[in-house]
Each structure stands twice: as C-alpha cells, then as structure tokens.
C-alpha cells in the first residue's frame, strides 16, 4: 500500500522508529480507552503525558546547560582564564562522579521535603522542578558532546582560516561549529538524553513512591509512569505476567484483566525501545557521513 510504503519506509531508520513509536502509543491509547476503567485510563493518560513532558523539558535543559558550560569553559581557556575553566571542569567532573539515580533521588528527596512542608506547589511547577533536577544530572552528556565538537574543529584549517580573516571566536564557536556543523549531533544527543531521562524518572518515581512502608509514603507528586507502576494494583498486574509461564492461555486474558499495570509497563518499555532505536539510527547516520 502506498501509505504503508511512505509511512513505514525504512530509508531513514530514525524517522521510521519515530513513526512506530507514535503509532504504537496511539494503539495503546485506543486499547486503554476501550478496555481500561475510567479512573485508570485518566491516570495512565496523565502519567504518560507527564513523563513525556518531564523528559522533553529535562532534555532541552540538558542541551542548554551543556552548550552553556562547554562554550563558557572554552572561551575562558581561549582567554587564558585558567582558574575559571578549571573550576568548570572540576564542577562537571564532580557531577559526573555521582551516579545519576543518586543525584536525582537526592533532588527528589529535597523536593518532596518542600512539598511536605506545605509550600503549595502546583503540578506544573512540580513537573518543571522535577525536569530541572533530572536535567542537572544529565546535562554532562550534552556538555561532553559540545566539547567533542569544539575539540574536533578548533584546530581544523577552516577554523584557523576564519580566525585569520578576523572572525570573532564566539561566532566561530556558536555559528560555525555548533550551528552549521553540529545540529545533527545535538538532535542525536537530545534523543539519547530523552531516553535516559524517561528511564531515570520512571525509576526514581517508582523508588520514591514505594518508599519503605506505606506509612512513610510522602506527599504525592504528579502522576508519572513510575509512580503508576508503584501502585499496588499495578504491581499485581505485573505479577500476573508470570502466570503465563504456567498457563500459556492466560496471555489472552492479560490485556483485559490486568490492563493498568500492563499498559504502564508496556508504554514505558516500548518508548524506551523506540527512543533507543531512534538514537541509534541517528548515531549510525552521523558515523556513516
């Protein structure tokens, strides 16, 4: 079919997997709308939207912070301001040395502390703060990418030619290197960070939501796929998957009887696989240039 050929043509694997992701999510949405009870469906919808929103904003923030720190570090090195550039390098190294989940968890713990003390933060503000926390621990990847681009180009002849012709260093870095020669790399890094944030926030939300016992469960954050999975009913749904090993026919009942947890888990894993494939395809495209 022409539609099939155009829509699913694999000439650009990145676009192909992006379309697969959209269609897959749409199918899950329709299935849930048909078979998931109303409150569960609303919860799942909100969780999906919030998870994607947080991942998107955190990825944007990571790219911005990565650009800012790498550019600032380079300019200070160029102007021989060693102290400033070394401080930035040290600060970034310190962030890199903290495992991302630990950093995110600490940030979440502080945030939930604030919400527990009645600061009356709206859901939107909470989501932005969550994005900020996650972005803070993942921007180092974007920083590394921008640094690599500068390192690759800075001694190339065309950069030297532009310098000798009188172009300012800031224009060389931002316009010539980043804008004209690194846009595909930024897109690839964005996709890659998006996947990592999506995974990390689901995991941290899950951990925070589970807490230690129910009585220590703290103030609820906006619904996300992670805290949706942490609900008792969702966990029961995931447990039910194990039943297919003893009773294969149960696989046909799963999508009806255990839909909330199953769709939360499936959405999470499906998005992770698609984003992985997209980032991979973009990486291969860059390496085969």
């Amino acid at each position: 079919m022409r539609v099939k050929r155009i829509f699913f043509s694999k000439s650009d694997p990145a676009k192909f997997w992006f379309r697969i992701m959209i269609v897959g999510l749409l199918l899950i949405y329709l299935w849930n709308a048909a078979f998931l009870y109303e409150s569960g469906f609303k919860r799942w919808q909100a969780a999906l939207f919030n998870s994607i929103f947080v991942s998107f904003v955190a990825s944007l923030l990571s790219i911005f912070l990565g650009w800012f720190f790498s550019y600032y570090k380079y300019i200070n090195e160029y102007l021989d301001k060693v102290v400033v550039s070394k401080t930035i390098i040290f600060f970034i190294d310190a962030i890199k040395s903290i495992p991302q989940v630990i950093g995110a968890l600490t940030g979440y713990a502080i945030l939930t502390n604030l919400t527990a003390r009645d600061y009356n933060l709206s859901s939107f503000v909470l989501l932005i703060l969550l994005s900020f926390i996650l972005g803070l621990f993942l921007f180092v990847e974007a920083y590394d990418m921008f640094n690599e681009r500068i390192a690759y180009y800075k001694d190339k002849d065309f950069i030297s030619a532009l310098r000798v012709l009188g172009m300012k260093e800031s224009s060389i870095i931002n316009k010539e290197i980043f804008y004209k020669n690194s846009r595909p790399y930024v897109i690839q890094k964005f996709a890659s960070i998006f996947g990592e944030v999506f995974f990390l926030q689901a995991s941290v939300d899950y951990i925070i939501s589970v807490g230690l016992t129910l009585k220590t469960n703290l103030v609820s954050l906006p619904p996300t796929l992670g805290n949706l999975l942490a609900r008792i009913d969702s966990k029961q749904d995931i447990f039910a998957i194990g039943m297919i090993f003893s009773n294969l026919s149960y696989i046909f009942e799963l999508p009806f009887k255990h839909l909330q947890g199953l769709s939360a888990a499936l959405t999470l894993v499906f998005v992770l696989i698609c984003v992985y494939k997209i980032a991979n395809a973009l990486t291969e495209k860059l390496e085969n240039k």
Partner: protein
Amino acid sequence: MNFNVSIWTKDNFPIVEIKDFYFEEGKINFLFGESGIGKSLISKAIYGILNPFDLNIYINNKSYFQYLNTAYVSEIRKNGFFVFQETSTHLNPTLKISEQLEEGDLSEFSSQFLDDFKYLFYGKKEEFISFLSHSYPKPHRPSGGEKQRILASMAIKKMQLLIEKNSYSNLNLFVFDEPSGNLDDKYRDLLFDLIVKKYLKGNFTILFITHDYSLIGKIYSQYENLLTRAKFLELRKEESGLSLVEFNSRNYLDWLKSFPEGYLNQNKTDFELLKIYPDLQIFGRKLSIVKDKEKFEKKDLTINKGQIVYLKAESGMGKTSLAKAICGLIKPDKIKARIWGTTIDENTKFEFYRDRLWGKKIAMCFQHSDEALNLNDLTYQAFEPFIKNKTYLEKTDLIEKNLFKAFDYETTKIIFKRKIKHLSGGQKQKINLLRSFLSPAEIIILDEPISGMDFESVKKTFDIIKNELQNRGILLISHNEEIFSKAVGSENIFYLVENEQD
C-alpha cells in the same frame, strides 16, 4: 578496457555518470582532472572495492553485485593493488609499519623490497629508516609525505613479487591515487622512477591519478622512450556530463614556455611588508631560511609590495607550520619577523595577532579546500561575514564581482547559493583563494593554491594571482615546483632547511 559507470546514492541522487571511461592495458595511464570530479570513485568502483550496500552502482549496465562476481574483478583484486590518496587514515595505528608491509598478499618475502623501500627514502640515514619501519603510525609521525611513500611501497612490493614469480600480465591493474600529492620534487621523482622501473619489467597496467602536470615535463625530458607507452587522459565536466578525453600534454608544455621567468614578479616594489629572520625553531625542530641549499647561505626572507616569494622545502619540513606561526595560529619555540614595521617573536601575545593582524594585515589561504572551507556553508556565506558595513545588495554585488574573477557568469549564478560541499574540488579551491583575496590584508600566504585544479583552472588562478599582486605581497608554498619556480624567478625563491649546524 571500456567502462560505463553510474554511481548513485541510496536515495537516488546521482554522484558520477560516465559512458565511456577507459584506460589502456599494458600502459601507464595518467588521469588528470579537477579534484572531486570522480576520478577516485570511478577507479575504486572498477577495482571492486566499493561497498554495493552503501551506493547504487552500475558498471556496463550490470549491477555492482554482478560486476564484483566477474572474473575480471577477481583477477585485478588478486594481482593488483590500489594506493589510496588520503594517507592519514590508510595506515593501521595498531600495527608496526614493517608488519603492515608484510601482511596479506605482501606476506611473501622479497629480497629486492628492502632496497626499493630504502630508495624511496634516499638520503635518509639507515637508523631513520629502521626506526620508521619499526614504529607505529601516529597522526603527525610519519609525515604525510612519508606515509604516502609507505603506502606506495606496498604496491611496489606487490609488483616486485609478481615479477619474481613471473606471473605478471596486462591484467595486473595498479592504481596510484595522487601518490605524490604530499611529496616535493625529489621524492616524487624517486617514486616515479621506481614505478617506471617495475612497470618496464612487468608491463603492468597502471592508472596514475594526479594533479601534478609537471610529470608531463619529466616524461618528455627524462623518459622519452615511455611516451609511446604513456597515455594522458583528462576527466572533464561538460554540459552533457562527465567525459574522458585525451589530455593534450603539449598544451601544458607550451603554456609553461609562454611566460618568462619571474613573470609574477614583474611589478615588484621596494616597500617591505614582511621580513622573516632566518633562524627559527618550531615544535622542537631547528630550521633556517637559506637562499642556497648547497652553501647553506642564511638570508632574511623579505616580501615587498607587488612581490611573490616562493618558500620551498622537503615535505614535512614545516613550511605550513611556519606560515601558521607567522599568522599567530601556533606558538613557535623561536621566531623573529617584522610585519608592517612591527617586530614579532615567540613571546608576542596572541592578542596582538587577534587585534592588529587578523582580518587587517595578514590573510592565509590554507591547502586542501575541503578542510579550509566550511562545507555546510552556501558559497556566498563563505564571503559574507568578512564584508563589513555594507547592505545586503552591496554585499551580494561585491561577492559576485569576486566570483567573476574565477568563474564565468552562468557558473557564478549557479554556485552562488549552492552548498560548498556540492561543488567540485577545483571550484572549492578557487573559492578558498578568492576568500583570502577578499580580505583587505596586504600580506597573503598561499598554501598550495592550485592543488586539486585542472589545467584550465590552473591558468585562471595564475591570472588571479598576477592581478592581486598589485597591492600585496604573497608568500607562496607549493609542490608545483616546475610551474612556480619559473613564474616566480630564482631570486625570489627561498628554502626552509633543517639546521643541523647550530
């Protein structure tokens, strides 16, 4: 053998299409043509080393899959060799050079090979050659010229092995893709001599891709017996597409005779723009500028307004590094120069270059236009940032006027808003050159200004340089010694040599 070659990208964009590509078996076929026109790609396709999964390739109306399965390709792959152009990535960084010269087909022993290898490094000490062969290739050592000779020596070893086994024939295809691009005249001659010696013994088919037109002069003067066994071909872009024509070698020789010695320096003045004092040290290497290599006569290199000075040296000596040091792009260990009356040395701060020289007093045209230009720019964008205080229309006008110096009206209109990466090598190199001349700087350094150009473009560039010299001084670096030595005149030639005496 004739080939109808068609190469497209997987997204069906045409890259190269030629109906009648050929080379004569049993002869040395010189293939000229501007860089980027497709000489290497066509040769690789015919040799059978392109990946049919990366490109859509058809040869003689057969798919490349089918072509690769033919006996012809099996034969040339088994008993031929391909010497690649880009030396920096064609040596394995994790194997010693000697190991790379002994793997695969080259694993058989040849008693003659060691002598051949030493011949390519004639004049170098035994210890150097031994160190070189037991070293691992790194980005800057061996130098580009040394890497080129090492790669060429692989082909030479293959030739020698075939000769020793008596199993040579016309079907042995040896492709040398720009084997002398990084070599000065001395080593180019040594390499060429060795190839010719092997050829005469084995009667191989050689495809010699080059921009070095001075080889024509060499053959006419030193290898007249080879004239009947040499073929001069040129790949040209015409309105109907690519075509392969016989290159009229006499045209080149006549053109060379047409201008007098020192032709470019006829309007030299006494106004000093740049003076470089003879003793230098760059990257730990002590160098001197001399007028006479044999007598080691040190002399200040002076460039006056209207003068072009030719700086010669062995490849890898440091000519480009010296040029970059003068421009303040690298920090030399020791240098002393006078630019527009101001003395600079190794302690001069980079702010001086940035604030006083760059974009104002000095400009440099770097070699390899692929690396000297931002390939993602549109053509006019290569010039635009450097035209200040003009409206958009004024800028467009000025850029077009500049382009008209090197291109005709129609070509200018076509390339004006085209991405630089889609231009041919010759077109890129012209833009590279024109951009330097757009600068108000009076001191221009030209590093290999005619590299990658076809003969017509070389002639045009010559005229551009002649015109631009009127109010400027030029420091020239080039491997095209035959052309520029005559055009510049012997009194304007200097040599950069290693200073072993101090």
